[in-house]
C-alpha cells in the first residue's frame, strides 16, 4: 500500500510499523509550554538522583550499592545480607501496588515523567539530536538528503555524542553494583586486565546506544510489560492525557460553520513521540508525555480559544460527569499497598545487623560417651556492619545437666567479617530423658541485634540407658 506522506495515524495499526513490517521512523516536532518545562525539571532532578546515588555515603556505604560479589546489599544506610533476600518480596510487591494505585488514579504518570527510558530519550538524546540536526522538518530533510560532507559531519557528531552518553549511563549503572572506588579502579586498569567489566560496559553501551538512537518508542509500544497492563489497570475514571471530543468536534478550519474548537491543524500529531493521534481517543501507544497538551494549548492561545482542548482528564469528565477517585479498584489497591507497607515496616524493623546460621557438623547427629550425650553444630556468623561487633551466644531453655560448650566468652568479628565456629551441646547421661528442643540466642554486645533459633538436641532412645 503506497504511503502518502505525511502518514496518518489510525487505530488499526501501529504508526511506527509500516505494512511491510519495516520501521517508520518518527521525527516528533518540538512542543513548548508549562508541561514540557515541568517535565524537564523533573527529568533533570531524576538524572541528578540516578547519578548521585552511588556517590552519596550513608553510614559509610553508598546510598545504593548492590554488592553481588560479597552478597551484601546496601540501601540508604540499611545493609541486607543474602539471608534477608525474602524482604525483597515486600519491596517488589510494594512498588507494584504503588504503581497500580497511581495508574488507576492518574494513568501512565510513570511513563511520561519518571521512566528512565523517557527521561533519557526525551531530555538527553533527543535534545542532542535537536541541537545537531535541527527541528523536525530539518531532520526529515537531512534523512532524505544524499550524503554530503555536512550530513556526514552532523551524523558523526550525533552518533559520537550518543555513544559517549550511552557509555556514561552504562558506567553509572555498573557503579550501582560495584561502587565508585572499584569502578574507578577498573576504569584505570587496562581493558585486557578487566576483560569482564570492560565487556559488560561494551555490551551495555551498545544496547543503550541502539535503544536511544533507533529503537526508542518501540520499547514502550512493543516490549514494556507495564504498558501491556494498562487496559487492566485503568477505567473510565482514570485521569489520562485526553482530547475533549465534545468540545473539539466536528473539527474544521477557522471560520467553518458549526465547527468545534479543533482547527485540525495536526500539531498534536506532529509532536507525538509515539506517532499517534490523541483525537482518536486513548490508545495503548500513548505514554502520557503531555507534549500534545502543550502543543494544542499553544494553538488555542493563538486562535483565542480556551486552553485545555487536550488535557489531563478522565473519560467521565469528558462525558460531562464527575470523576470518582474512591472506587473499588483504587480502594483495593490502596488496601494492598497499606497492608504491604505495614508488613514491610515490621519486617524491616526486625532486620538484624548480623547474620547467623546454625547447621549440624558433618558426622553423626549425636555422640555418646561414658557420661555424656553430645550434639555438634557449626554456627556461621556474619557481621553486616562496617564496624567491629562482639557476639554472645547463649542457650535458653536448657534441660538439667546440659551445657553449651565453646561460648563461655564472646567473640569479636571485624567489619563485614564472616566466621564459622563449632557450637556444642552436651548433656550428662544421668539427666538425659530423650531428644529435646533448645533455643540458641545470638546477640551483639551493644544490644543492637538479637536472633533466636531453636535446635533439636538429638540422642538415642533413653530406654537404651535404662538400668
Amino acid at each position, binding site marked *: 500500500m503506497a504511503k502518502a506522506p505525511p502518514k496518518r495515524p489510525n487505530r*488499526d495499526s501501529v504508526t511506527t510499523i509500516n*505494512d511491510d*513490517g519495516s*520501521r517508520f521512523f518518527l521525527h516528533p516536532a518540538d512542543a513548548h509550554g508549562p508541561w514540557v518545562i515541568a517535565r524537564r525539571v523533573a527529568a533533570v532532578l531524576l538524572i541528578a538522583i540516578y547519578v548521585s546515588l552511588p556517590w552519596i555515603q550513608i553510614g559509610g556505604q553508598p546510598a545504593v550499592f548492590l554488592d553481588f560479589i560479597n552478597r551484601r546489599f546496601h540501601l540508604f544506610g540499611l545493609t541486607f545480607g543474602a539471608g534477608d533476600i525474602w524482604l525483597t518480596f515486600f519491596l517488589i510487591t510494594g512498588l507494584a501496588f504503588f504503581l497500580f494505585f497511581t495508574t488507576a488514579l492518574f494513568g501512565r504518570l510513570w511513563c511520561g515523567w519518571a521512566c528512565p527510558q523517557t527521561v533519557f530519550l526525551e531530555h538527553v538524546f533527543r535534545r542532542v539530536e535537536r541541537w545537531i540536526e535541527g527541528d523536525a522538518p530539518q531532520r526529515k530533510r537531512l534523512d532524505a538528503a544524499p550524503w554530503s560532507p555536512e550530513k556526514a559531519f552532523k551524523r558523526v557528531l550525533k552518533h559520537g555524542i550518543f555513544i559517549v552518553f550511552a557509555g556514561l549511563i552504562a558506567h553509572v549503572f555498573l557503579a550501582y553494583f560495584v561502587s565508585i572506588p572499584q569502578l574507578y579502579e577498573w576504569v584505570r586498569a587496562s581493558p585486557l586486565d578487566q576483560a569482564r567489566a570492560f565487556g559488560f560496559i561494551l555490551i551495555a553501551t551498545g544496547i543503550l546506544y541502539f535503544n536511544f538512537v533507533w529503537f526508542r518508542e518501540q520499547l514502550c509500544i512493543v516490549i514494556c510489560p507495564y504498558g501491556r497492563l494498562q487496559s487492566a489497570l485503568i477505567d473510565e475514571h482514570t485521569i489520562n492525557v485526553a482530547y475533549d471530543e465534545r468540545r473539539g468536534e466536528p473539527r474544521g478550519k477557522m471560520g467553518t460553520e458549526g465547527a468545534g474548537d479543533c482547527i485540525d491543524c495536526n500539531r498534536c500529531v506532529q509532536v507525538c513521540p509515539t506517532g499517534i493521534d490523541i483525537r482518536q481517543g486513548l490508545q495503548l501507544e500513548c505514554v502520557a508525555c503531555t507534549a500534545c497538551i502543550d502543543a494544542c494549548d499553544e494553538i488555542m492561545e493563538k486562535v483565542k480559544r480556551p486552553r485545555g482542548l487536550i488535557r489531563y482528564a478522565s473519560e467521565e469528565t469528558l462525558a460531562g460527569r464527575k470523576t470518582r477517585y474512591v472506587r473499588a479498584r483504587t480502594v483495593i489497591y490502596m488496601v494492598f499497598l497499606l497492608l504491604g507497607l505495614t508488613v514491610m515496616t515490621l519486617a524491616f524493623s526486625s532486620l538484624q545487623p548480623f547474620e547467623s546460621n546454625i547447621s549440624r557438623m558433618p558426622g553423626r547427629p549425636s*555422640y*555418646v560417651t561414658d557420661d555424656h550425650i*553430645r550434639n555438634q553444630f557449626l554456627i556461621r556468623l556474619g557481621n553486616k556492619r562496617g564496624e567491629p561487633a562482639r557476639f554472645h551466644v547463649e542457650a535458653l531453655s536448657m534441660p538439667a545437666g546440659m551445657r553449651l560448650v565453646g561460648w563461655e566468652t564472646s567473640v569479636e568479628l571485624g567489619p563485614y567479617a564472616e566466621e564459622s565456629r563449632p557450637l556444642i551441646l552436651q548433656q550428662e547421661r544421668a539427666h538425659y530423658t530423650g531428644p529435646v528442643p533448645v533455643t540458641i540466642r545470638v546477640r551483639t554486645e551493644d544490644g543492637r541485634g538479637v536472633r533466636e533459633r531453636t535446635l533439636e538436641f538429638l540422642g538415642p532412645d533413653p530406654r537404651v540407658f535404662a538400668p
Partner: protein
Amino acid sequence: MKSDSPDKPEPGSPHPHAGRDDIPPGAVLREHVYDGIEEYDQRLPNWWLWTLYITIIFSFGYWFLFFTSRALPTDSERVAAEIQRIEALRFEQMGTVDAETLWQMSRNDTILAQGARVYSVNCAVCHGANLEGGIGQALNDGEWRWGHDPMDIHSVVDLGSPDPMAGMQAWGRQLGPRQVAAVVAYVLSHNDPGNMFTAADSPGRASER
C-alpha cells in the same frame, strides 16, 4: 467490531473482505472470530522477526558448539573440570607436607600465628584453649591415640578421626590444606619432639588407614 458472522474467504476472490465497510481497504482479518471479536492479520515488525531469526541461528550455533563438535565444554563439564583442578591443587599441596616440614613449620612464627587463630576458632571448643583437652583428647601431653608421627596427626585433622563415634570431623573440607597444615604445626609447637609416643591402647596409625 460488528458481531455478524463474517464471510468465509472464498478461494480466488480478489480480496477476502470485499464489501466489509467496517475495516479499512486492504486490511486482512484472521479467520477466527470469538464472541464477535476479530483480529487483523498485521505483519510483525521486522526487528521483532529478526530477534526470532537470530535466536534460531544462535540455537544452531549453540547446538553445534556444545553438543555436536564439543568445541566448547558444557556447564557440567566445566564444573567437573574445576573440581578436578581444585583437587589436583590440593594433592599438590598435600604432597609437600611431610613430618619434617611440619616440624619446621612448628618453629615458624608466621605460620604459628595463623595456626593459633585456626585453633582458637575451630578446635579450642573441644580440645581446650590451652590444648589441655576436654570433650576431645589433650594435645599437649605427647600421647597420641592414632600414632605420634606428625603425618598421623595431620591425617586426623584432615580426614577426621578413624573412629566415627569420636566426633572429630574431617576439617580438611572446611579449612583447606594450608590451614590444616598450620594448625597441625601449632599443635606440634606445644609438644616436645623428644617426647612423642603412641598410646598403649592405640587401635592403629591414622596415616595408614
